[in-house]
């Protein structure tokens, strides 16, 4: 397997020996903007404008400064269509900022930018939406199930999740800036390659533990029999949803069933 960081795989990729520094004020400006990278999300250029918005403070370092020809050309390039996971877009922002500052050819930057979209989306979705988020959520539900206070459940969820979230954004920017067009190497980091697997295992364990406990606490003092009946009902329902996955969404069924039960309960008395 070829080493994607090697200069041969991406012509003119930085060798890593040069230490190009990003001024602290620029770094802070980019980091603060990264949290709003999706603010103009739309079906035409997706987060393209957001990428331009985040890269912009670095582009001021180009010869001619803000408003110069190089700045404008680079900003126009960086504000085109782009799609990635929002947290991992920081890898792209760092790498693209570096490529622009190094004066890489426009065609190469554009092709690299296009190729980055898919992997950053795929890795991010697996690591965050199907990894970190459900794992933290089931962890919080587990705490609820064993009787933790609302504040504890909320804080543990937010602290765990955002420790991962903020670290990803900061690390991504750093790695992107360090590696430039060779950022693919950073995507091969064990955290990004194996993180989804570890999180999936932790998430499965926590889901298995949290769901029965959450059901028990919701049933609230109904006793073991009542909790058991509710759990068996939930297990049957889960099996049906798995059987019909892709065709039925449980939350939509629950919406209808919930309102139907409400009306039935009210009518029964009337």
């Amino acid at each position, binding site marked *: 397997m070829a080493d994607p960081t090697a200069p041969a795989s991406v012509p003119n990729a930085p060798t890593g020996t040069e230490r190009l520094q990003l001024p602290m004020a620029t770094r802070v400006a980019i980091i603060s903007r990264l949290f709003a990278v999706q603010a103009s999300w739309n079906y035409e250029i997706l987060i393209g404008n957001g990428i331009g918005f985040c890269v912009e403070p670095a582009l001021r370092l180009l010869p001619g400064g803000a408003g110069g020809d190089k700045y404008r050309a680079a900003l126009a390039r960086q504000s085109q269509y782009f*799609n990635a996971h929002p947290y991992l877009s920081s890898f792209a922002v760092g790498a693209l900022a570096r490529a622009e500052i190094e004066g890489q050819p426009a065609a190469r930057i554009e092709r690299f930018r296009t*190729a980055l979209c898919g992997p950053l*989306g*795929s890795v991010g*979705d697996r690591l965050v939406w199907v990894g970190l988020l459900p794992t933290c959520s089931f962890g919080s539900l587990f705490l609820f199930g064993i009787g933790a206070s609302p504040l504890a459940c909320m804080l543990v969820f937010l602290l765990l999740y955002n420790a991962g979230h903020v670290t990803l954004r900061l690390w991504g920017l750093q790695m992107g800036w360090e590696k430039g067009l060779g950022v*693919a190497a950073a995507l*091969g980091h064990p955290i990004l390659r*194996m993180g989804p697997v570890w999180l999936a295992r932790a998430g499965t364990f926590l889901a298995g533990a949290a769901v029965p406990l959450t059901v028990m606490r919701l049933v609230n003092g109904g006793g073991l029999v009542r909790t058991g009946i509710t759990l068996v009902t939930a297990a049957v329902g889960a099996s049906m949803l798995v059987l019909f996955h892709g065709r039925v969404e449980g939350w939509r069924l629950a919406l209808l069933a919930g309102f139907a039960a409400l009306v039935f309960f009210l009518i029964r008395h009337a």
Partner: protein
Amino acid sequence: MPIELHRIDDRLIHGQVVVGWGQPLELRFLVLVDDEVAGSEWEQELYRMGVPPEMRVEFVSVAQAIEKYASFASDPKPGMLLTGDIDTMARLCAAIPALRRVNLGGVHHRAGRAQKLRYIFLTNAEEAELRAMAAGGVEISAQDVPAARVIPLETVLAGEATT
């Protein structure tokens, strides 16, 4: 059929492909058909990074895809064939009689394209190409993720289902 989905998606390998479809269909391989990516080692490396360890990915040109399609189709594990544009899929459909069902997963905005769905934008030429494929017996529908509604080509082209 081991190739569970033949998808057109200009984002190629991304979250909807790997997680959205990959997990419910338990996909174990992806065939990415793109002449440029097939000839670019660094792009292949980049796309490989987006694929989970349990899934393999093959990068092939259109000619190679036509030649190897039977072996992909006979793979006992489920897989997905992916192209980044309509023209590539049309060329595959024309050359592979067994390829008779196509999923429109994402064709995004570009100058000259008009919106048909929130994730489908087409030029007149692309619209004509899809119609020609359908006339040739290919069943085409749009669906970005498995839980979303399946939208037949005629409804897509009518542009009546933008949400």
